[in-house]
């Protein structure tokens, strides 16, 4: 399920090397172009495919779900804030999708470092980190003792 690089289009800029979460996109020592050093480890997250400014990276999926003749290509247009997908089926059908890159303004999401350090006794609480606010509810549902039935039901 690996990514592969069209070396004639690649200009060795290193964006894919920087962004790959598995650290498997590296630079070839003969041509100074990018290549996938360990296809077995590739998650097909498409991070490198989207990041490549030359659109020089593509994915070759395994045959049971991505048969020969298919194609999935994406075009990330940062200046417009969009990412477009073109899916071509082996029978020739095409489907095109356009999505925004983000739905919130850049910088609007609080980073983990911006949260206050929790109190030490928070470990004794039944609630997990950022609950119940992160769930967009007032409180977690809970049973009170008088709601429990005694004896055989």
């Amino acid at each position, binding site marked *: 399920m690996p990514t592969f690089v069209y070396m*004639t*289009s690649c*200009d*060795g*800029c*290193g*964006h894919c*090397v*920087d962004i790959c979460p598995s650290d498997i996109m*590296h*630079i*070839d*020592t*003969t*041509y*100074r172009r990018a290549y996938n050093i360990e296809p077995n480890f590739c998650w097909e997250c498409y991070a490198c495919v989207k990041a490549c*400014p*030359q*659109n020089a990276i593509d994915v070759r999926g395994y045959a049971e779900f991505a048969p020969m003749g298919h*194609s999935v*290509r*994406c*075009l990330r*247009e*940062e*200046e*417009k*804030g*969009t990412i*477009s*997908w*073109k899916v*071509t089926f082996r029978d020739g059908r095409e489907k*095109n999708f*356009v999505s*925004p*890159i*983000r*739905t*919130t*303004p*850049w*910088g*609007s999401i609080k980073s983990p470092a911006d949260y206050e350090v929790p109190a030490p006794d928070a470990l004794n609480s039944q609630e997990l980190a950022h609950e119940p606010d992160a769930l967009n509810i007032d409180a977690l549902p809970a049973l009170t003792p008088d709601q429990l039935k005694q004896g055989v039901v």
Partner: protein
Amino acid sequence: MFTTNHFAELSATISPAIMQTFVVVMILCVAGGTLLDMLHKKSARYFFENWRKVQEKGKQPVSGGEVASLAIQTAAVEVLTSAEFCNPRRRISHLLTMYGFLLYVISTFIMVFWYPTPATPTPAILPVLWSLGALMVCVGGYWFWFFIRVDVASEGNSPFRVVRADLFILSLLASVTFGLIWAVLQASGSGAATVFLGLYLIATTVLFGSVPWSKFSHMFFKPAAALQKKVETANGSRRNLPPPADKPEILGSARRQPGHY
């Protein structure tokens, strides 16, 4: 030093015919090396096969006149301004190296063939352009070598690690650096000038003779690839990429560029 034709001064010990033969041999090495590279990698065959596929997959035909117009645009934009580079530092470094190399090579050719001896006074501009070209290559090249090279900046390798991909840039930097040092020493009458002349000739021979193994021939292949990309966009095939999106509402600012390279 900058207005002296060092090749004319050299003609006292090395005959102009030998210098001119050397230059011709270097040109033949480039031509022959590029052809050998193309034959070995079958790059011409793949290029024309790809060209045929692009024509077949195109949604609208592109006439010969349009291709010619796209070729002019490719030359004016992608080639002359190195527009394919999205990283501005890489682009500036490449422009310095490219134009410096052109100045350096063309002025060398003119001085060796048209003004080979002191009997043929050299216009002062030529040695100035030679020195300027060599200095531009040094600035752009060393900047690239130490700071911009992706295997150093992005992968964290030592700048002193040498791999085969470095053959072109290293031999180019060696040629211009030894050439400049030789010119300075020759102008000052130093005995060490001969040593650096030898190093200059060796580095230049490696630069032009290693074309089949180095990236030298990218200067011929990349414009062809850039033209092919333009034709793909013009005929609608776009390398099977989706079409540009309709402009939607833009959220936030552009992505912050990576800060470590």
